[in-house]
């Protein structure tokens, strides 16, 4: 074992010899020791946990053992996660690490469970994606909240999450879940019409309409332009969403179409010149349009 390998993940602290590391490992494995002492031993071991199979096995056991203190288990997870930044070391432990994560992904502790699911979701783990989708279909089996599940499913656009996301967007269990479902669908080419409808719906909140504008820009920019023009010219729309419309036209509008749209240009020029009672944010957006498009 090379001395440098015993450094902590941040590379701080003195290098430790084999005997010291063995002592730290012994403290970590001793359930009779105070938690603080074991936490310190774990921190001192750092990436050295991956040097020997027995040491790695002990840390993985610590992570997956529900009888161990949760602070210690979370710390073990953090140290293991830090090892992923060292591909060569991580390659050796990857399979065992994933296996341990799958085990704790249904742990009673919500934080541990949620963190494990997050790591697995980032690895595009199919079993995790299935569990998350199952939880969305049958809330009684859910491991995390629907909004969290949708967020985690968003890490892999090839997971088959779009149908359930669409269903949640239509009949959400709560507003946050709906927002996450819409975020997920922002990469779904078949959802452009959904976002256009939401964007043009005055009954929707500004946040959701802004999200829809962003999604529409991603999926069908030409349709966003038409919607943005309509919103901009509609004085009954809230100023916030009109500002979004003007900004969209300023930065993403088609040059030729914008140049030839005399009605819109005259309207925004007048708006930017300072109509009485208009929102300052909207006026600023209009001035930016004039400066960029009509200068």
């Amino acid at each position, binding site marked *: 074992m090379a001395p440098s390998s015993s450094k902590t993940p941040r590379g701080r602290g003195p290098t430790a010899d084999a005997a010291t590391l063995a002592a730290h490992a012994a403290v970590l494995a001793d359930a009779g020791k105070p938690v603080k002492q074991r936490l310190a031993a774990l921190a001192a071991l750092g990436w050295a946990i991956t040097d020997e199979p027995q040491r790695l096995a002990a840390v993985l056991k610590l992570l997956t053992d529900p009888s161990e203190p949760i602070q210690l288990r979370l710390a073990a997870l953090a140290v293991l996660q830090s090892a992923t930044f060292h*591909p*060569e070391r991580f*390659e*050796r432990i*990857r*399979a*065992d690490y*994933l*296996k341990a994560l*799958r*085990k704790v992904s249904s742990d009673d502790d919500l934080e541990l469970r949620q963190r494990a699911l997050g790591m697995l979701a980032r*690895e*595009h*783990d*199919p*079993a995790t*994606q299935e569990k998350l989708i199952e939880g969305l279909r049958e809330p009684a089996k859910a491991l995390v909240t629907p909004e969290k599940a949708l967020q985690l499913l968003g890490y*892999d*656009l*090839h*997971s*088959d999450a*779009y*149908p359930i996301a669409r269903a949640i967007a239509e009949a959400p269990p709560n507003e946050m879940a709906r927002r996450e479902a819409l975020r997920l669908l922002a*990469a*779904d*080419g*078949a959802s*452009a019409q959904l976002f256009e409808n939401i964007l043009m719906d005055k009954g929707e909140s500004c946040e959701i309409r802004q999200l829809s504008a962003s999604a529409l820009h991603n*999926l069908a*920019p030409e349709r966003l332009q038409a919607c943005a023009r309509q919103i901009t010219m509609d004085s009954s729309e809230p100023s916030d969403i009109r500002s979004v419309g003007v900004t969209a036209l300023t930065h993403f509008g088609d040059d030729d179409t914008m140049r030839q749209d005399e009605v819109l240009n005259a309207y925004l020029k007048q708006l930017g010149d300072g109509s009485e009672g208009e929102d300052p944010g909207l006026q600023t957006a209009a001035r930016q349009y004039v400066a960029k498009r009509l200068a």
Partner: protein
Amino acid sequence: MAIDLVAPPWTEQDFARAVEALDPHDAVDRAELVSFLDERHAVHRQRGAAAVGRMRGWTLLALAKAPLRGDEVMFVLEELQSGRTAYELACAARALRGVASPTPAMAGLVLRAASNLRATDDHVDLTRYGGLADDGTDAPTAMDALMDTLAWLCTTVPGTAGVLASALRSDDPPLSPGQRDRVERCLAHGLPEPQDHPLACCTSDADWSGLRRSCSEASISTDAITFEDQDGNPVGYANFFRGGPTVVVFFYTRCNNAGKCSLSVSKLARIQRLLADKGLAQVIQTAAITYDPDYDLAPRLRGYAESRGMCMDARNRVMRTTAGADELHAHFQLGVNFIDSIVNRHRIEAFVVDARGRISASFVRLQWNEEDVVAEAVAVVDRAAQADSHESVTHEPDGNTSTPTRRSRLQAWLAPPIYLGMALLPKCPICGATYLSLSGILALPHLDGIYWMMPALMVLTIVNLAGLGWLARATRDWRGLALGWLGATVTLGCGIALEQPAGLYGGIAISLIGCLAARPRRGRPCTVR
């Protein structure tokens, strides 16, 4: 037992049971198993990418229970070369041991799989469908499965050691130190390198290039296929592909397998450089077409291709279909399937299309070599050139060949009058009116009392000159008006006032030339703005 695809829904477990029930030793069952590996098969439709991977892996395992032969081997090799997930790679590694005639070069693909697995290894349980081991059992990893297969190749296929030693020396594919150790252990227990078994004879992978040659008349109409290119320009299939032989690759920007789409477009960029080096950049076109036209809009296409070194112009485009996607898929028989709008599985595909829009050669499943594709494209150019020269060299009835022949001499004689006739043929109302005017002018001298019609002739001449003036102003070309003016002067002055027939006909001729010269400029339709 066949899956009832007519009456979905069926679950993955139903599929797994159906596959298990098929007998790989029975020809009919085996054909059905192989059909499940076709990306276009209905079983893959509307399934997530992970589900499709599990289904393919399970099918490979079932197939390998009987010796794998011919094209069946390609599916295994494809997975080893381009696969990224632990389960699929482990299944492919196990299936490789069912190949009827393994070769040493297959060890190279196992190493490639090991390299691909560096960031995705996992415990796998190949005894059960989709078997990721998360139930506490001590299952081996996918890397273990690959190394077992490598060890099997080393101990059963002479020449494998040479392939492995060569790969380790060149570090291609790149392996981690741990993987190198394991490969060296396989080598240590392998068969000694045979003296009479030179490496070259064993590593030929010509049969694995995925190359298929064909040039039959397409049964699928491509007329309805239209594209939008990286700049948003509309492009018709015929308009683009009939501009010359074309190398076509398929891809989509959201592909998360770096060994497929991203690599294909990067290799197409290299093909462009090879063509430029050979002076063929103006002869052979290139095109990259997305599988995902809803999402891959023009700016995305341009950014994706640019970042991979592709040059884009009128002969080299990156395109998405705007109409006729089904016809395009049918024409190229694309190996791709979808869940909603997202691709869930596709194979590697590159084509050489001839100047008539027909597929001349295709490279599918396995990684293609840029030089091979260029060679195929050059062969298409050569064949077209030979066909052209063959058309000009026709056979005499007595069997002798002569150039030019009687037929071509006849064509040479007939061509000028035909072309002249076509050029003079009135093709629009203005041309027609010009010819009618000419007829009328020529007939005027034969009318009785023509000299009493001076006022009418003056009016008509003024109308003619006014028309020419209007045309001249519209086209900014004053030559027609000048000639018309000269013609009128000669006709009225010399022809009528001085009663000189030569002046009359000369003036008419000059007026006619003026009318012809006043036509709109070349390149514009024969209409007046």
